[in-house]
């Protein structure tokens, strides 16, 4: 047992001294999140989704809807039913809902008409932007109608919704990606190098059971993944105002990160088992890891991807880890809610582990 801890300490030191490993494990995920967050996370880059509910009917309401549709900062959908629009708002499908009430424009002489306006307050920046834009459009339109004074005003109401920003979407994805790279690349790279250098053979010449050396490495790798997850999450919360909701979210994240690490460490051992040398291991890791990174909905949602590619997306173990992490971190879901993602991860992990044990060679 003491030998196990000696190996853990040795692995920790080796990781801490390996600048390249530190870069890929810690710096790269944060850098990636930062860059994508800055480039795509700003409001305005993505048009805010606005639902317009036309309860008034008539030409004035139709003209007004048309004006909104021409505003570049807005992506306007006409919805017939206010309740349906509000439900979708709560689900995060819209940033805001604007209602054109019955009797729009009537009695304009007596003052301004209040337009019910509901916005998702889960993201303050987005809420402020969309409110501001809608306010401006409504005022301008009012002046055009009356010529002198505001005809309409917004009756704004915040709605607690699950709506999320791009950065909210991105953070769990980057955590999943880091867990995958820590698993596949670190494990396969390390063990193929050890095999090539004869380290594994030399260790087999000692009375030490091989399991204690391997399990020490795996434990250090799991902790490394957890630290990456914590770092990405901390940067997301502190710098990018990621909305983390629900109690016990950290504990759930740790559980998912450990399960996901198990799956991808197993995949890493499988790569190490079939790759003859470090070049093959690196290439194989890329062949497996790169498509997975782009087809698992890490950086962008896969909902809009072509239908024919969906079966491929569904075959990616990383998708399930990203979905589960997203559900837990952003939507405040419980582990029970994401249980099917977890089941798929465990099934993948068990299969990879079985294949590794079957094909792994010590020399």
């Amino acid at each position, binding site marked *: 047992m*003491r*030998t196990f801890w*000696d*190996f853990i300490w*040795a692995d920790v*030191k*080796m*990781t801490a*001294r*390996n600048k390249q490993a530190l870069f890929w494990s810690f710096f790269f995920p944060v850098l990636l999140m930062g860059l994508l967050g800055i480039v795509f996370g700003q409001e305005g880059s993505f048009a805010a989704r606005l639902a317009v509910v036309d309860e008034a009917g008539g030409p004035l309401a139709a003209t007004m809807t048309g004006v909104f549709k021409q505003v570049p900062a807005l992506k306007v959908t006409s919805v017939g039913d206010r309740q349906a629009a509000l439900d979708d708002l709560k689900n995060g499908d819209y940033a805001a809902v604007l209602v054109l009430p019955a009797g729009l424009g009537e009695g304009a002489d007596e003052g301004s008409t209040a337009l019910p306006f509901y916005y998702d307050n889960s993201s303050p920046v987005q809420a402020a932007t969309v409110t501001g834009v809608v306010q401006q459009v409504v005022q301008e339109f009012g002046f055009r109608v009356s010529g002198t004074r505001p005809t309409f005003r917004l009756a704004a109401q915040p709605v607690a919704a699950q709506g999320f920003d791009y950065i909210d979407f991105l953070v769990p994805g980057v955590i999943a990606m880091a867990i995958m790279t820590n698993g596949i690349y670190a494990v396969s790279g390390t063990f193929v*190098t050890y095999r090539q*250098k*004869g*380290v594994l*053979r*030399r*260790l*087999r*010449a*000692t*009375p*030490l059971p091989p399991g204690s050396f391997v399990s020490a490495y795996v434990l250090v790798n799991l902790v490394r993944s957890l630290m990456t997850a914590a770092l990405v999450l901390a940067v997301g919360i502190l710098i990018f105002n990621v909305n983390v909701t629900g109690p016990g979210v950290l504990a759930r994240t740790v559980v998912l990160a450990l399960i996901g690490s198990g799956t991808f460490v197993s995949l890493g051992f499988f790569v190490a088992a079939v790759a003859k040398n470090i070049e093959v291991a690196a290439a194989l890791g890329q062949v497996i890891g790169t498509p997975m990174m782009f087809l698992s909905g890490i950086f962008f949602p896969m909902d809009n991807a072509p239908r024919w590619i969906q079966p491929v997306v569904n075959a990616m173990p990383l998708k399930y880890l990203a979905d589960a992490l997203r559900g837990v971190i952003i939507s405040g879901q419980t582990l029970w809610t994401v249980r099917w993602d977890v089941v798929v991860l465990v099934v993948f992990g068990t299969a990879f582990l079985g294949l590794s044990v079957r094909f792994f060679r010590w020399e």
Partner: protein
Amino acid sequence: MVSVSGSADVIGVRGLTKRYGELVAVAGVSFTVARGEVFGILGPNGAGKTTTLEMIEGLRKPDDGTIVVDGLPVWPRPKVVKGRIGVQLQATALFDYQKLHEIVYVFGSCYGVRRSKRDRIALLERVGLADKADAYADQLSGGQAQGLSIALALVNDPVVTFLDEPTTGLDPRARRALWDVIREINRDGTTVVITTHYMEEAERLCDRVAVMDLGRIVALDTPRALINQLGATATISFGTSEPLPLETLCGLDGVHDCREEDDVDGYVIVAADAQRAVLSLMALAGERDLRVRNLDVRGANLEDVFLTTTGHRLSVDDDGAAAAAAGTSRRRFGRRKVAP
């Protein structure tokens, strides 16, 4: 480490056999290694030296035969013996990003031996690496890296340590430095089993040498006794002012074998009797009015033992370093006269 058996032999191998499909890598090898000696296994690449060693070390399961180390059978459960022996494998096992003294600690830990830092430096001192204790393994030269892997073969104070071609690929100076290290280790009381394809290494370092070829031991004795078996043999090389037919050379009195040799720009004779061969060569030169240049008479060595017992050269597949280190050079075969 206190040995279990009081017997003089620390290793006993009998009928050891290993097959890989059709290929018989080790074909019924038997020998014993006495406590305290340096035992060499000399042979070319592919002779079965490493396979033999790995079966004794408990890394490779023999198909047939028995191995006893320090009174304990290695197979079927090699773990106990693994703990009592020291192992240096051909491929040097090193962790990146670990300092030398840390590597010594981790490997010691594998044997349940946890050394203090002072103790680790003392072990590194034995292989001349004390001043490198805080260096990383990738900063070592080839000879130093081999020194480290020998230190790791001593980390558990073994009764016997196995060194598999420890000096392969080293330059002559580093090789000689490593010989001193190995002698020192042996003087401190550790039995050493070493494989090599350098005849000079076997000759200078080993108390006894097993000459191995094609999976068999073809000769086993002290280097001196092996060479003495060849009688008054010597290798004579020279150039001549006029070409000589090999038939005539090989037919000379006292000559066992002869060939043309580009490296000496002339001929090489393997003499069964050096004195008679030189005399008859000089007589021939006088008869034909030839000048003999660069005459060089060299006593027999293990290379000649190998050549005589197996019919082929030791350093056939080598990169030339072995031959260069041995003070010989690459040669081509000429015609051979069957010894009377």
